[in-house]
């Protein structure tokens, strides 16, 4: 049996999905987190069923690719039952989609999610009466806390098993046209939802500060500053003692196995890879992803889009395109994928190109592990500002080259929600797991292979290949290999750097100027393999190569410029 979850953006479909399927879908308190469907087998009442989480859609006649995906799936795949998730605090809005489904005579259960939120703002829904009127089951739900999930799925199971669904009780949609559906949905809300006294809480007053024309930006800077301080503080606290400890182990292992032997070199190489993951990447990745997840779930990200819309317009995009950018700080892959929520193809290209320039968590580990660690957090902040400035400039140039006016921002700002510890940690774990199972083994293997290559002096060959670039940037020839590995995974460029230069104490092998030049180049050049794959999926091969070429040009120019500036100061 196959059950599909459908509903408007940000009504909690993915939260419900994760409740039954374990954490498999990205969630966040902003529109359009899910851009493709996720399917999972779930055991309910002793039976195994397929549950599909579809991207949020306001209507079955949607216009952007994420919305089209949802309706195409519903119409083509064989779906036994549809759970239509509604946000109970905005019933009329959600019912418009329900009415579309009823008009299709689709087998539907309505799940009224966020019942807690609705009662907080003083709404009282008459569920049984609405159920009688619509002719389909209406079930209460608080997906974030797991309340109502079990009854919902047991009902779904019972209904899905039936040969055919009795649609004779379905509410008759006389005029199946959007204006008529809108009127009918509003009428239904007026009839079945009683508006009580709205309890104004601190949460409602929060936007007076956070969206204030002046204080809002102060808040934005403070929040992002605090965010980076916490990430850096937590990272450095763990990294320093951990690295020192692991360095001792390596030296002891080398002495035990005997210096200079091939076997020793390979083991030490692999060990360096393990250390890099433990000591350099994880300390920054874990707090960063926890923090990002927290900001997303609270609902702050849409506020950032609101605040930044004017600025984004200057680079030819609108505030909604801030989502790929913010996701990009975690990982460029979901960032590129989220450009699917943008309506205009040109805007998708520009947003995807710019998103690949955003330094992801892996690059963060390079910036923090190299620049912040040796030259101080202020220097790291300067590099991040340089990055933002470069993105803005490139955005302007790109949009000037492909002129076309953008319709402007239309974005729902969700209410603040108190995130549950469970969803935040699960989300972070979901993203960290990717590093552990995909990147780390590659890191260890790559490190060992490089040690092998070093032993046979094969690295020289790769270094010569990259020599034109490294020479121009004034970097040691040995940095060629780390840069090649950086294309596999960005964090590898730092690990391999240690391996290639023969020390993890980078201040002994690199000058300050070289550290800055290297980091700036790594920040921008060629997207990692996973991002290239995402670009190809979203935009096609031609655009993927165009963006790759663009990043190399940008990386060369910015690295050369920062080298020049750095030479004046150091």
């Amino acid at each position, binding site marked *: 049996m196959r059950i599909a979850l459908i509903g408007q953006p940000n009504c909690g479909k993915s939260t419900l999905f994760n409740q039954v399927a374990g954490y498999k879908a990205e969630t966040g308190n902003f529109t359009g987190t899910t851009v493709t469907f996720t399917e999972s087998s779930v055991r309910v009442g002793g039976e195994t069923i397929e549950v599909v989480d579809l991207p949020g859609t306001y209507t079955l006649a949607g*216009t952007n690719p994420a919305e089209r995906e949802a309706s195409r799936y519903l119409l083509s795949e064989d779906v036994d039952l549809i759970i239509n998730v509604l946000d109970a605090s905005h019933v009329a809005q959600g019912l418009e989609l329900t009415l579309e489904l009823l008009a299709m005579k689709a087998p539907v259960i309505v799940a009224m999610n966020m019942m807690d939120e609705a009662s907080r703002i003083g709404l009282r829904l008459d569920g049984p009466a609405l159920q009688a009127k619509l002719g389909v089951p209406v079930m209460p739900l608080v997906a974030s806390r797991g309340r109502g999930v079990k009854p919902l799925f047991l009902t779904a199971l019972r209904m899905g098993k039936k040969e055919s669904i009795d649609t004779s009780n379905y509410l008759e949609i006389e005029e199946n046209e959007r204006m008529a559906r809108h009127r009918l949905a509003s009428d239904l809300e007026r009839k079945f939802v009683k508006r009580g006294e709205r309890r104004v809480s601190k949460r409602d007053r929060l936007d007076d500060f956070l969206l204030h024309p002046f204080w809002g930006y102060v808040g934005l800077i403070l929040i992002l500053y605090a965010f980076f301080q916490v990430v850096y503080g937590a990272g450095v606290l763990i990294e320093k003692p951990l690295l020192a400890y692991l360095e001792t182990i390596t030296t002891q292992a080398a002495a035990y196995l005997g210096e200079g032997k091939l076997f020793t070199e390979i083991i030490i190489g692999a060990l360096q890879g393990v250390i890099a993951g433990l000591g350099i990447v994880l300390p920054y990745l874990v707090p960063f992803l926890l923090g990002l997840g927290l900001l997303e779930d609270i609902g702050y990200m849409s506020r950032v889009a609101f605040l930044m819309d004017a600025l984004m317009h200057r680079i030819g995009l609108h505030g909604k395109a801030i989502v790929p950018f913010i996701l990009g700080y975690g990982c460029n892959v979901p960032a590129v994928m989220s450009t699917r929520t943008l309506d205009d193809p040109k805007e998708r290209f520009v947003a995807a190109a710019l998103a690949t320039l955003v330094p992801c968590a892996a690059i963060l580990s390079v910036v923090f592990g190299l620049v912040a660690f040796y030259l101080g957090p202020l220097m790291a902040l300067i590099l991040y500002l340089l990055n933002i400035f470069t993105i803005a400039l490139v955005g302007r140039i790109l949009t000037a080259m492909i002129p076309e006016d953008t319709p*402007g*921002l239309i974005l729902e700002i969700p209410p603040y929600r108190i995130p549950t510890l469970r969803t935040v940690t699960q989300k972070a774990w979901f993203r960290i797991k990717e590093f552990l199972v995909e990147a780390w083994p590659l890191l260890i293997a790559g490190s060992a292979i490089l040690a092998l290559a070093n032993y046979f002096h094969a690295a020289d060959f790769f270094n010569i290949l990259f020599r034109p670039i490294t020479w121009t940037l004034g970097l040691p020839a040995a940095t060629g290999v780390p840069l090649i590995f950086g294309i596999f995974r960005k964090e590898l460029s730092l690990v391999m750097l240690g391996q290639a230069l023969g020390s993890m104490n980078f201040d002994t092998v690199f000058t300050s100027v070289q550290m800055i030049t290297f980091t700036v180049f790594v920040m921008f050049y060629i997207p990692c393999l996973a991002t290239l794959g995402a670009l190809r999926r979203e935009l096609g091969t031609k655009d993927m190569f165009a963006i790759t070429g663009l990043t190399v040009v940008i990386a060369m120019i910015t690295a050369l410029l920062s080298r020049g500036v750095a030479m004046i100061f150091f």
Partner: protein
Amino acid sequence: MVLLDVKKGDLVRILRLDGGTGLEDKLTQHGIYPGDCVRVLREAPMGGPLLVDVHGREIALGRGVAKKIFVEDKECE
């Protein structure tokens, strides 16, 4: 009068959407229809978007969009 001209805090009724079918589709998909009442809650500085309340939901609208929503300042609930 268009939505862009409405003072912060004022409640107005939407007369028509005048930005071609593309924009009209986008707005109706977000639950903004002619006949609906909207209140302007906030304005972002530097030519940023407006934040409006439609049926208790908060929606950010860019100025280019707000310029294409014609409204009248008349009886609204």
